[in-house]
């Protein structure tokens, strides 16, 4: 099979999708470690305090960095200020989008929804389409033809991955989607995951966002200054590289079409700064296994179930030492994937570990 034919498997409607449904890979039961019910009830409890504290730091530092950048503009001294601002705007917003999207970050719903909307704006992700896409990602993690969030396909679209460290491919695509949504349409893939009754919300938000971005560009033109776009919208591009660095550790190079998150996700231990920016999403197996557990309890959940999990990666660098060679090898051999091993005494992997794929050729 030609590589380009295999890439077609990732479309959300087609023979690979049909195969996943017929094979019982879609909406399937996934492995979950045993956690005593009383302990799990403790771990899923919500509190506003940790996320309000972290949100205050996130927005507070971003505003200070932006103010310093504007003050120092146009000297080069403004650059480090905007790097800090850009990472908080363009990268930290990804994990806020994720956690608030699950509704686990805050106990108070309106706060959670407010942070969700802010984070969606920063990441240029439509709040409705991405909520539904992410639900599908949790139902069918790395199930080919079903999961709309597979970043690293087999073979990887390497140029796109590299360019996207600065949003060069996905950024313009997202801007284009705003126009599509604002005109009252969804893409074919989005129609697969977003129910009819929810679509009007997607259209409304992108109409508002287009007005904001048009105003930003108009301000830049009128002021003869880049500052408006450096402050609004621009950070999604120049500050999004850390989000890419973190997110690629989640699933890149791992097993597809399996029903055990220990085979297709990573737990990566990170330093406190990265854990703050990424809101503990390095604990990714734990998150997928128990999506109700808020980010600030994931380290405790890890301790609870680590006997069932493969050895966690000790750092982001350690994860990339595995990811980069795997992606390069998959360019030549898309059947290759990273195989994890379980510690002695762990519950065995659920189902087939090698993944189940269509045997038919797809033109």
């Amino acid at each position, binding site marked *: 099979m030609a590589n380009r034919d295999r890439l077609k498997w990732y479309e959300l409607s087609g023979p690979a999708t049909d195969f996943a449904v017929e094979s019982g890979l879609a909406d399937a039961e996934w492995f979950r470690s045993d956690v005593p019910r009383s302990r799990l009830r403790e771990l899923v409890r919500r509190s506003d305090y940790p996320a309000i504290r972290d949100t205050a730091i996130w927005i507070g530092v971003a505003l200070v960095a932006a103010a310093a950048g504007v003050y120092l503009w146009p000297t080069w001294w403004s650059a480090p200020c905007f790097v800090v601002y850009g990472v908080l705007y363009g990268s930290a917003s990804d994990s806020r989008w994720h956690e608030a999207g*699950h*509704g686990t970050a805050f106990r108070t719903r309106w706060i959670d929804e407010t942070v969700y909307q802010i984070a969606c704006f920063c990441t240029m992700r439509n709040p409705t389409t991405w909520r*539904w896409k992410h639900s599908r990602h949790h139902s069918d993690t790395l199930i080919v033809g079903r999961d709309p969030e597979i970043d690293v396909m087999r073979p990887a679209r390497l140029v796109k991955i590299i360019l996207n460290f600065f949003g060069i491919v996905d950024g313009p695509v997202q801007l284009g989607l705003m126009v599509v949504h604002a005109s009252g349409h969804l893409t074919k893939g989005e129609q697969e995951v977003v129910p009819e009754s929810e679509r009007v919300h997607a259209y409304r938000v992108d109409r508002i966002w287009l007005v904001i971005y048009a105003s930003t560009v108009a301000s830049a033109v009128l002021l003869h200054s880049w500052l408006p776009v450096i402050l609004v919208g621009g950070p999604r591009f120049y500050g999004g590289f850390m989000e890419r660095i973190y997110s690629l550790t989640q699933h890149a190079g791992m097993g597809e079409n399996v029903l055990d998150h220990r085979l297709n996700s990573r737990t990566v231990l990170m330093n406190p700064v990265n854990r703050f920016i990424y809101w503990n999403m390095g604990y990714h197996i734990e998150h997928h296994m128990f999506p109700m557990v808020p980010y600030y309890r994931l380290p405790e959940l890890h301790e609870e179930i680590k006997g069932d999990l493969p050895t966690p990666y000790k750092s982001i660098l350690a994860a990339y030492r595995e990811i980069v060679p795997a992606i390069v090898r998959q360019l030549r051999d898309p059947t290759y994937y990273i195989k994890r091993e379980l510690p002695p005494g762990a519950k065995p992997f659920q189902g087939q570990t090698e993944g189940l794929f269509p045997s038919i050729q797809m033109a």
Partner: protein
Amino acid sequence: MWLDVLSIDGLEPDDVAGFSHGGRDYALYRTADGQFFASDGHCTHQQTLLCDGLVMDGFIECPKHNGRFDLRTGRAIRAPAIRDLATYDVKVEGGRVYVNLSDSSSTDAASP
């Protein structure tokens, strides 16, 4: 038909228990203020069992996709749950909790 489900001590506040009857799954909830509610046992989004979910502030949260339902009405209050949940009358008598499975989608609560 009132079904004797469990003793009031069999369910802690802010917790949920699953039970089956006639080949169907149901969920019984006890809120922090001691009221009992009952509903169908599966999330209307993708049929995940709700007895593994989180009961808090008067809602049940699905353990898989975090969709939420109001326990009093069964109303879907958070996507990806968008279809309401069927609810059932509950009464407490003699320290036992009973659920009326013949009449769904009522909104009455029962307190011990």
